[in-house]
Every structure is written in structure tokens, then in C-alpha cells.
């Protein structure tokens, strides 16, 4: 064996080396395929479950807005309209139309959403002259009816609806009066205990307010810290210690920030629980390390020649930093900030401690109103017992994913657009 030439040795090992290379490539392809497959499964599952949340079953009804029954006329003011018994009017209408046996009446009424009377009330509030007229409306149906119409139609049995109820529903469906509309309420309502009335507007507004607080605090603080540490701070033990701890903070589990927020902002400073203000403060703590680290990296990437040229022309340290380094580093800083904000957007754990896991119906108007955020809304709905909430959970996930994809795409676009290569 020892009398082989080098060339022969190389040739002999060639096959083995090529095999190992192609094996490595196969592993790589397999991992990528596995990752993509998981993503595809996740997306199809969420889409399959969630797309139907964007549709809501309604029923075409022509109903007389009987002024005598409601106790109002076409000149009635808002407070009188709010007191009028629209619920009774809806029930009376269905009672007269279907004429159920007495014991079946409750079952008939349970098919119609509690939102139906609010729907009529809203119509009359907008146009009081409708009182006394017969109007055609698409009345909101209960979530059980909604689920049956979308998923169980054609099945003979249903877990919640009984035979009498299915009889009425099948008749209405055959007459073409039951149909689905685009679920606008899902985007215009706050949370509700009735799935058909539950929407994400409150959560989206809460998310927006919380992220606004986070951005307004973490962007200036993070960038100031990064510039100081990178450009002005002396290199000594203290700055080194600070640096190490910023890196450590980035790896701290997010729930810890929630506990910190509870102890400092709520218990010490008395900021109200469950508000975007306290949520934003906690998320600021969480995103600061990400922003500082990425901003410092962006500042480091500005070549020293730029600084030296500026110094050579007589610029002061301040002028060098703010006229030359900062504009060039800004795209990197913005990318880091957007990624930090996207992280904050998906966070629930720290918010758990500061009371943002809450049922909030009214859409928050300011950062001191109680509110919740989108991921928390998803979590709350996933605990709901009605099947319709499962659907809405997936619907809200789709919306959240859209936001995340948009934010990440914006980060990529900014980087492409503004980045300069040296």
C-alpha cells in the first residue's frame, strides 16, 4: 500500500470525498424541505380553519319597524330609541312568521343572534324616519346556526341544534334566505362573549397604541444608547460591563420583563393595569436590547474613512456623528427597530403579568384606556368553548401573520432601498 503515488491516493479518496459532499448537500436540502413543509402545513391548517371566519351567516328578513310596539315615532330622539324593545320586535316577528308551538319558542329565538336587535337599533338611530316602515335586512344569526350553515349543512344531526331547529333552518336555507356575507363585524367590533359579534378592532387598536408607545420610547433611547456606546464612550471596564449586560438582556425570557413591569410601573409608579401605556413600557424594556445591538452593528459598519474625511475637513465629533455616521447607519438601525417591533407585536408572556389578558369590549381611544392586543385576543379565543371561537382564533392568526409579514417585508425593503455598500 505504501508504494501508491500521491495522485493515486487522491484519486482513491476522491469517490469518498464526493460522496460526503453530496451527502451533505442532501442533508441541507432535506432540512430546507422539512422547514418548508412545516410552514406549508401550518399555513394550510390555519387558512383552512380560519378563512370561514371572514364570512358570517345572515338571514334575509323583511321586518316591520312597528312604532306602536317600539313606543317611538319617526321623530324620536336617540335616548328613546336606545330604550325601545328591538329584541322583542325581532322575537315577535319570528314568532308570527314561524308560528312555533309554545314549548319550541325558546329554541326558535336561540337561532337569532343577540346582535340582531342591535342591528335594527343602529338602523333606526341612523335614520329615525324608518319607524313604521317595513325594511329588508340581513339579520345576524347565532354562532351555532353560522357553524351549521358553513360546515354541517346536509348532515342529519348536529351536536347543539335539535331536529325542530334543523327543520326551520333547512327550510330557510332551501328558500335561499340564509346566506353568508362578508364578516364586517369581525373588523369593526371589539371582543364579545358571542362569537358572531366578536371582532378584532379593539385588539388591533390596542396593539397599535401599545406599539406606538414602544416605538416612541425605544427608538430614541435605543439609538442614543447605541451612538453613545459606539462613538463617545471611553473603552474601559464599565462600558464593557454595560455591553455584556445589554447582550445578556437580549436573551432574557420575555416573561421576566412582565414581572419587572408589574413591580416597577404598576406597584411603584401606580400606572393603571391593562393599559397600552404599561404594555408599551414593558415591551420597550424587551425591545431595547435588540435595537441597541442592531444599531451598534449598523454604526460599526460605517467605514472609518468617512469619519476621517469629515475630521479632515474640520468637523467636530458631534458633526461627524450626526452629519455623516448617523445618516449612513440609519437604514440598519431602522431594520433593527422594525424587527424589534415585530417581536413585540407577537408577544403575550410579559403582558400576562400586567393584566392585558382581559376581556375588553370597548375599543380603546387613548393609551390609558383598558385594552388588549392581537396575540392576547387569539389566546383568549382559543380558550372559548364554542366552535365558532376556534374559527375566529384562526381568523385572527391570519390577520396577525399579515401584519408580521408586512413589517418584515418593510424591513427587507428598507434595507434594499437604503443600504449602501462600500
Amino acid at each position, binding site marked *: 500500500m505504501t508504494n501508491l503515488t500521491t495522485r493515486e491516493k487522491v484519486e482513491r479518496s476522491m469517490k469518498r470525498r464526493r460522496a460526503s459532499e453530496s451527502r451533505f448537500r442532501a442533508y441541507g436540502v432535506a432540512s430546507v424541505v422539512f422547514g418548508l413543509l412545516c410552514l406549508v402545513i401550518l399555513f394550510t391548517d390555519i387558512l383552512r380553519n380560519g378563512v370561514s371566519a371572514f364570512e358570517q351567516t345572515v338571514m334575509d328578513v323583511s321586518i316591520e319597524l312597528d312604532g306602536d310596539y317600539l313606543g317611538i315615532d319617526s321623530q324620536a330622539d336617540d335616548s328613546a330609541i336606545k330604550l325601545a324593545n328591538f329584541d322583542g320586535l325581532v322575537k315577535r316577528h319570528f314568532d308570527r312568521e314561524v308560528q312555533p308551538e309554545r314549548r319550541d319558542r325558546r329554541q326558535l329565538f336561540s337561532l337569532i343572534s343577540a346582535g340582531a336587535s342591535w342591528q335594527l337599533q343602529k338602523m333606526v338611530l341612523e335614520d329615525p324616519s324608518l319607524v313604521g316602515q317595513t325594511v329588508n335586512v340581513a339579520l345576524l344569526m347565532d354562532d351555532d346556526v353560522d357553524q351549521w350553515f358553513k360546515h354541517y349543512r346536509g348532515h342529519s344531526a348536529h*351536536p347543539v341544534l335539535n331536529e325542530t331547529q334543523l327543520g326551520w333552518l333547512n327550510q330557510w336555507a332551501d328558500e335561499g334566505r340564509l346566506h353568508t356575507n362578508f364578516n364586517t363585524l369581525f373588523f369593526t367590533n371589539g371582543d364579545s362573549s358571542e362569537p358572531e359579534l366578536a371582532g378584532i378592532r379593539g385588539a388591533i387598536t390596542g396593539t397599535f397604541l401599545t406599539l406606538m408607545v414602544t416605538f416612541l420610547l425605544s427608538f430614541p433611547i435605543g439609538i442614543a444608547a447605541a451612538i453613545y456606546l459606539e462613538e463617545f464612550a471611553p473603552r474601559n471596564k464599565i462600558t464593557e460591563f454595560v455591553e455584556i449586560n445589554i447582550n445578556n438582556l437580549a436573551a432574557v425570557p420575555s416573561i421576566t420583563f412582565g414581572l419587572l413591569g408589574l413591580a416597577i410601573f404598576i406597584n411603584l409608579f401606580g400606572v393603571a393595569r391593562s393599559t397600552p401605556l404599561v404594555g408599551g413600557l414593558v415591551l420597550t424594556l424587551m425591545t431595547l436590547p435588540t435595537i441597541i445591538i442592531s444599531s451598534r452593528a449598523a454604526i460599526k459598519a460605517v467605514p472609518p474613512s468617512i469619519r476621517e474625511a469629515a475630521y479632515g475637513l474640520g468637523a467636530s465629533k458631534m458633526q461627524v456623528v450626526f452629519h455623516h455616521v448617523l445618516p449612513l447607519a440609519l437604514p440598519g438601525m431602522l431594520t433593527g427597530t422594525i424587527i424589534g417591533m415585530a417581536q413585540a407585536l407577537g408577544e403575550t408572556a410579559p403582558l400576562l403579568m400586567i393584566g392585558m389578558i382581559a376581556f375588553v369590549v370597548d375599543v380603546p381611544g387613548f393609551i*390609558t384606556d383598558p385594552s388588549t392586543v392581537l396575540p392576547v385576543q387569539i389566546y383568549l379565543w382559543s380558550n372559548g*368553548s364554542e366552535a365558532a371561537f376556534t374559527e375566529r382564533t384562526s381568523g385572527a392568526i391570519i390577520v396577525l401573520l399579515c401584519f408580521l409579514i408586512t413589517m418584515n417585508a418593510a424591513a427587507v425593503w428598507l434595507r434594499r432601498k437604503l443600504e449602501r455598500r462600500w
Partner: protein
Amino acid sequence: MKKALLTGAAVVASVFGSQAHAERDYISIVGSSTVYPFSIVVAERFGKSTSFPTPKVESTGSGGGLKLFCSGVGGSTPDITNASRAIKQSEIELCAKNGVDDIIEVKAGYDGIVLANAAEAERVELTTKDIFLALAKNIPNPDGSDTLVENPYKTWKDVNPALPAREIEVLGPPPTSGTRDAFVELAMEGGCKQFPFIKAMKKADKNKYKAVCHGMREDGAYIEAGENDNLIVQKLVTNPAALGIFGFSFLEQNADKVQGSLINGKEPTFENISSGEYPVSRSLYFYVKKAHIDVIPGIEEYLAEFMSERAMGEYGYLAEKGMIPMKPAEMATVRANVKALKTLAAN
């Protein structure tokens, strides 16, 4: 630049300042995740039918809620806490220590806890004794002597020859859950005290009695499946051999997927729980801070909404959501107490 910074600082300072002093204008409710779905319905209806803002309801668990509730009086503390068990003496003391003296206890209704399996599997009939023997960490020695041994049973047939030879596999909530507390107290302890020597232990050594009766086995037969009852239902569907522990309202909503086991010969139905015949049912409560009633607007009106016939009555919307209403006589007492704002100490 400087001006902008100063204005910014002023805005932040004013927000903080106004925060610390402004009183809340909405009701803040915390507490049990079991009462949460009922509480939010009342809160929502209250918000829609009155001019008050809709109350904010947080789901913190019974213990967590009472801790927050007892942390003091004032706008930053909750006005009402929901609980799936009665307040403990230690909690009343904590409240008193922090200046929360007048607490109004309100019983809201009943809730059943069910043991269920997949609908296509065979329905199970158990006694509380079977449940204790199958799930306790230490059980009385099977040879009949008055000693305790580590739970040796692998299948239901080992526990009781009348039961199927299926492996014991029960999915249930973790110790932080009120459902778990109630299950342990009612089902486990119910079976446990049927052994005379353990019952005698209660007088001699209460802590040991509790440890024996409340200790769940940790060898994998009892699986902690988290607080999410939907998850337990899903797991039961994929595994017909397993049983799951959750609230009655989930059984009702998922009647096509799971069926409730008979306990001591009683099926978990609305009627059986309401009449108290089904052994594993508990009372749901909420507690109101009397000192807040004149300060935070709408608390009395919220109570009135909760007490109304259309809410907690026999055919009220809470019953539709799965809460089991009280008998009329009991309900009348509760209503009278609430109307008089009767506090716990006065009881």
C-alpha cells in the same frame, strides 16, 4: 430638537401624573377562568344596556384574583373578583391586613366537573372510590390492611373488576386550576373518606389526611394537560382510551365529540347538577369590594344585572352559557343579601 424633547418629556410626565390620580370610570373584574366566560356575558350585556362603560374582565385564576383583590383599596385594585371556590380564611385575613374589610360574597350558581371520554368509545361508569383508587398517589393496601402503598394499579380492571381492562390514562388540569382544586376536593376526597381508617386520620392529623386524599399520582397515569379545555377535548377524540377532566359547559358544547362518565350512577346533566345529585359539582362565587361601590360608577347596577332573572334565572342567558342556576329559594336569599349589600363579616 431641544424643544421637541422638552415637549415630549412634558407629555410623558402629564400622562404619568394624570394616571396616578385619576379614578377609574370602568369596573375592573379579575379572577377565576371558570367564572370568566359567565362574567364576560354579564359585563357585555351591562355595557350594552346601560350608559356605563363595559367592565374589564381579567382571567387570573381564583387564587390570583383574590390576591389582587386583597391588595388594597383604591383605583389601582380590582372591584370584583370571581372565584370557583369560596374565599379562604387566610385570604380574608390578607384582605383585612390591607384595609379591605367589607367584602360582599355573592354566589353566582353551580358548575359541574365531568370525567369524559370520546363519544365513539364505551361510556364509563365510575364511583368516587374508583376515581380515588385509580388516581391517588398513595392508596390503602389492596390486601385490606390499614396501611398505605404507592398506587400499583395499571388498568381500570385492577381498580374494580367491573370496569374494562383499559389502561388508566386521565387528562386533567394542573394544580393552579380551580377545576383541579374542586375535582380533588369533591371526587378524590369523596372516594378517599370512604376508607374508615383514612377518615379517622382527618381528626388525628389533618395535614396527612389532606396529603393522602389530595395527592394525585405522578407516574404518568394522570397527565396534566394545561388549562385549555379545548385541548383536552381534542386529545380525547384522538385517543378513545383516555378520560379527561373539564367543566360541564365544555361537555355541553362538545356533545358530538365527547360523553360524560356516570359518577356514582349519576349522569352529568343539567338537572342532576342543579339538584346536587351529581357528586362532582361546586359553587361559583364572586366577591365585591364594598368600599368601591360609591367610588367606581356602575357597581350596583352591574350587581343588579347579574342578579336579574334574565341573567342568572332558570332560563337566563347564563344558563344558556352552561352555568347551572340555583334553586329559587336559594336564589332569593342571595338576591336579598346582595340588595342589602351584606358583607362577609356580618354573615
